[in-house]
């Protein structure tokens, strides 16, 4: 028999990512803690290690108001850093 698929169609737009930099020197690194346990530890350590190998790199931290809630400060982050490290889920 023939049946109709119940799956939803999803949008097919693909957004461009920012142009990558050749070097991390002077990079403004952002860390967005998604509020999950130890996310700050994982993200913070990766940021520290990146900054350690990049002269003049800086790190700035933000924390989401809750793991299931949107990052309301996203515009501020976009204006403040060159890259952002964040976590998804647990």
């Amino acid at each position, binding site marked *: *028999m*023939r*049946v109709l*698929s119940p*799956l*939803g169609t999803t949008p097919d*737009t*693909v957004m461009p*990512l920012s142009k990558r930099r050749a070097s991390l020197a002077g990079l403004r690194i952002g860390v967005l803690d998604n509020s999950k346990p130890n996310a700050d530890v994982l993200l913070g350590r990766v940021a520290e290690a990146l900054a350690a190998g990049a002269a003049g790199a800086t790190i700035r931290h933000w924390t989401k108001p809750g793991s299931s809630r949107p990052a309301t400060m996203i515009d501020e982050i976009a204006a403040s850093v060159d890259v952002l490290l964040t976590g998804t889920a*647990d």
Partner: protein
Amino acid sequence: MLGTDAFLSLARAQAARLGLPHLAVALVPHPVGGIDPAIVRGKAETIVDEVRAALTRDPALRARLTRAPGAALVDAPDDLDAFQTWAMDARWSDGLPVLPSTAERVDRLLGALLARRREPIATLAPLDGAATLEAIAINAALAGALPEHLPVIVAAVRALAEPRFNLNAIQTTTHPCTPLVIVNGPITARLQISGGHNALGNGHRANAVIGRAVRLICQNVGGARPGLEDRATQGHPGKFSYCLAENEAESPWEPLHVERGFGAGTSCVTVCGSGGPTTSTTTPRRRPRRC
């Protein structure tokens, strides 16, 4: 984006939903939470080079996740038992037998709405699936719903998509919660949606099929497949179907829809992210006792 290997499917789904299927995702072994921070820092060290590379090399554009369009007609086994296995393999099913979503059955469900079948009702997280009237009816057909149930199911879908409901979190969380559909007003009597004995249990067709249709829509249209985008650790039985009417006649409280600003004679659907039911009961004493 950083995550653990157990959540790769969800990370990819979330990135694709944002139009970023090519976003770099660096993974450490699960878990990160609930362990010594020193171990977490050790896990972080293993991905530093990968993150550095992701920040200094332009990403190759990955193929976009593609899903079959809702209206696609596909070949399925004629035999009903074989159809169950086929539907399960296609991940259309919830595990219980589903009825074939033939064009005839879907058209019958849509009835007077047939001409509006392509009308979008909502976009459902996590994959931003388009819940057209047709997509809703197809899932209702799988669930065994009747045409008269469709308005309740459509209203529930609209409610699910309200931003303040945060469907994305409900659909993808490790918590067992799922949308509970609460129906108020005269439609509950007309459709025999139970708010009485065993309302959350077996024995009520309208409760069973409306709740089940909503669940299948969440899974198939929203794109929350158990173990992939739906990360519930153990879930609960209400994830098969979770729908009841408020027992307005016997309740000492104002009906939910009235409390929320609607007229008592208006039929309303409320959705609420809910865990498993818990009984709250008192055993009558012979004499009242002052607390």
